[in-house]
């Protein structure tokens, strides 16, 4: 009973973290929200996987957050304003609202089709997948695109953990997460160095 209540609380946390990541433009806040999503994913994953495997996912996730944070912190030049991204706060709020409606609407149907996954697990997973896809859809910025991919991947991992408990898959998924974080860091550094070179040439 308490577990179930906690699980739904975690789903609420996912909704809030996804919303913050979508609305806020400060990279520190966005990374904080990502770290929170990994924490929430840890709880939902451990509904089906052993504690140790869930912990491995959490540690990997936080390592990704740390890698991205350190990279972003080390960049002397600020990233360019994302012109593709719609301005204003209402648009992302409406989008995350739509995702929430779709996720909560689809959850009982998926549970009916594949019993045993658990309603909070499905809802949390769908929320993250939806939020990640929306993130990818409304940005052309490297940092935000990586955050979107990672968010989508966390959502997928939650629901996939319920159907596949292989250690090899868990390891590969951890490597994929870590790889995505490192690729994101690499692309951020490449972007910043290219702009530094251009600025130096202009000066």
């Amino acid at each position, binding site marked *: 009973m308490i577990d179930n209540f906690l699980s739904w609380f975690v789903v609420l946390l996912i909704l809030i973290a996804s919303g913050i990541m979508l609305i806020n433009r400060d990279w520190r806040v966005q990374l904080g929200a990502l770290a929170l999503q990994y924490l929430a994913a840890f709880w939902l994953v451990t509904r089906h996987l052993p504690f140790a495997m869930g912990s491995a996912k959490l540690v990997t996730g936080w390592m990704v957050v740390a890698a991205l944070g350190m990279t972003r912190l080390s960049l002397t030049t600020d990233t360019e304003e994302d012109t593709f991204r719609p301005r204003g706060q209402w648009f992302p709020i409406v989008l995350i609202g739509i995702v929430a409606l779709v996720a909560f609407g689809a959850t009982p149907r998926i549970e009916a089709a594949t019993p045993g996954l658990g309603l909070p697990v499905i809802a949390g997973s769908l929320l993250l997948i939806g939020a990640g896809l929306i993130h990818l859809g409304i940005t052309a910025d490297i940092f935000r695109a990586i955050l979107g*991919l990672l968010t*989508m991947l966390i959502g997928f991992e939650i629901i996939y953990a319920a159907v596949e408990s292989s*250690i090899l898959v868990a390891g590969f998924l951890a490597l994929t997460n870590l790889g995505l974080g490192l*690729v994101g860091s690499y692309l951020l550094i490449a972007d910043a160095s*290219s702009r530094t*070179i251009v600025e130096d040439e202009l000066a």
Partner: protein
Amino acid sequence: MSAPVIWILIPLLSGVFILFGLRERVSAIVGGTIATVLAMTALILPIDTALLVGSVSVKISPAIQFFGRSFVLSAADGTLLAVIYGLAALWFFGTEASGTAHRFVSLGLIIISLLIASIAVEPFLFAALLIEMAAMLVIPLLVPLYQRPGRGVMRFLIYQTLAMPFILFSGWMLAGVEASPGDISLTTQAGTMLGLGFAFLLAIFPLYNWIPMLTEESSPYAAGFLLWALPTFTIIFAMGFLDRYAWLRASTQLSSAIQFAGVFMVASAGIFASVQKHIGRMMGYAAIAESGLIILAIGLRSTEVVNITFLLLLPRGLELAVWALGLSIIKRETYSLSFDDVQGLARKFPFATSGIIIAHLSMTGFPILAGFPPRLALWNELASQSLFASFWVFVGLLGLLIGAIRTLSVFVMAEENIAWNWGESGIQAGMLGVGVIGLFILGLFPQAMQPLLSRLPAIFEHLGQ
């Protein structure tokens, strides 16, 4: 020793060693030699068969356990390993001539070993994860540290990452379909998931927009390597699905959908190629058309599916290598590959421009070149099934041919009184020469591929039977 250790672990560790321990100039020779040795080993030493060397009996075991799962390279995979590492050696030796960014050989070896692991892993659907890892490793090749990442690279990363969940989920759902084959709803859902996953992985229309972007903004050699390596293994992975699930093989709707996707890719890529004004983008569209042909071959309702698919896959690596090398040589001089910048270059770079045109013509299916025999075989089968599809394939290939003629005219459009030069180095001319001769040999004597082609279908138990 086991086969996965030889053909997965050794190249993986060699790649890491080259990355951290060797200079760029040496890495091409070392990496190329390692790939050649691995190819020769795969060709000579049979897997899972005892050999008597002097008084010692040697046997390469086919499997290895890793975290409770198996990596298996059976005796049937030997030929495929030889082909893959042989072509990889060609790419690695070419890095010196192409002047590609360092790390190509080291990361290339790691990428190839991961992709080999993707055909060895059991259950086979975990391959999606290994392909995703390989795709991520391609990024440093495509974007040097001082170059701004373009939209093509980001789209490539996003599409490859989106493919993985779809394929993993579909694999899980397909197991359910096997358990209850009468469940139409589950079958449709699994099929849709699988289709979406492979649409992202294989860059099926309209998800191929990243390819011309990438060939325009990135190093042509790295982009060419990517366009050879990833689709080759993805196609084998896709054929693994068809081989594993009888209902997928038997589904006429799926076969029609695959054929339609293939025809659409060939026709659209050919038409787009005919109007391009950038020779890098031209290579991208040609690669898309080639992928379309391979997808079309998979969708054939024929026992020749596997033969035709491998007949298309084998020359692809050579065609793209020659084309990408030619583009790299030109790009080092002009920095841009738009028609305005490469006009009249045939007199300055005769080998590079000839290589590009011959590789392009081969991809259009021009007679006496490597691309002709597989296209003829495909057309022969396709014409007996659908004249409509054959017509649109013809339109696509005609578009590619128009692109080749336009490129040729731009290359020779030099101002008067400009003397012919030999702008390429000896290594560059030699590598291009070897590649072009290879294209002619495969076109004139397609039976040269027969020893390989006769053994490759054994990879699959049911497909093409």
